[in-house]
């Protein structure tokens, strides 16, 4: 088990009702974090439509997650 700080943004934050939390998760990658928090961020989005960052660096869904990492879960973006 790893201690992972998860942060939710925009639609994810509203569905989770919180902007972030620290969870004990059995995860290898960001993809695992996304799936295991799906009931919290409440999204039916496939991860392919979303983005992720680890410790303030843009990442992808194969990026490994270490104990103590902060994983930022970004719903589909809409800048401009």
């Amino acid at each position, binding site marked *: 088990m790893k201690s992972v700080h998860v942060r939710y943004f*925009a*639609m994810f934050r509203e569905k989770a009702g919180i902007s972030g939390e620290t969870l004990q998760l059995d995860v290898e990658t960001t993809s695992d974090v996304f799936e295991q928090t799906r009931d919290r961020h409440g999204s*039916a989005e496939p991860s392919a439509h979303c983005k992720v960052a680890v410790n303030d660096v843009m990442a992808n869904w194969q990026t490994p997650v270490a104990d103590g990492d902060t994983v930022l879960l970004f719903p589909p*973006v809409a*800048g401009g």
Partner: protein
Amino acid sequence: MFRINDRVIDSEALKTAMADPAAGGFCVFEGWVRNENEDRPVERLEYEAYEPLCVTEGEAVLAEASERFGILGASCQHRTGLLEIGECAVWVGVAAAHRDEAFKACRYIIDEIKVRLPIWKKEHYVDGPSVWVNCERCSKHQTAKPGT
């Protein structure tokens, strides 16, 4: 330089900062809040952003444009918070020796900004509850799922 904040965009000041005696062409794109989206009347927009990564990615986009198109300068400012119809949400300016590079780099920057930066847009409608708008690339998948 890339900036993201809740202040009104001062396009004249942004342009003045890009003055360059070697520049023969200057191209600007401004994204304005428009009064409808997919036939629904929009009252205002709300932008949320994760600013630290917007700046990192935004600066990366500007650097890529410089390298690809050999321009003299590029600058972008994006707003956050509540915006009214007609307000400028994003400004992109590119100065170059010639117009071809200026147009291409400006288009490249706004296209990349829209799909890469952690920015989200909530539309407040005249006739119903607010909705998070999804990116253009995903919009086909999204419109099939009302209420998400």
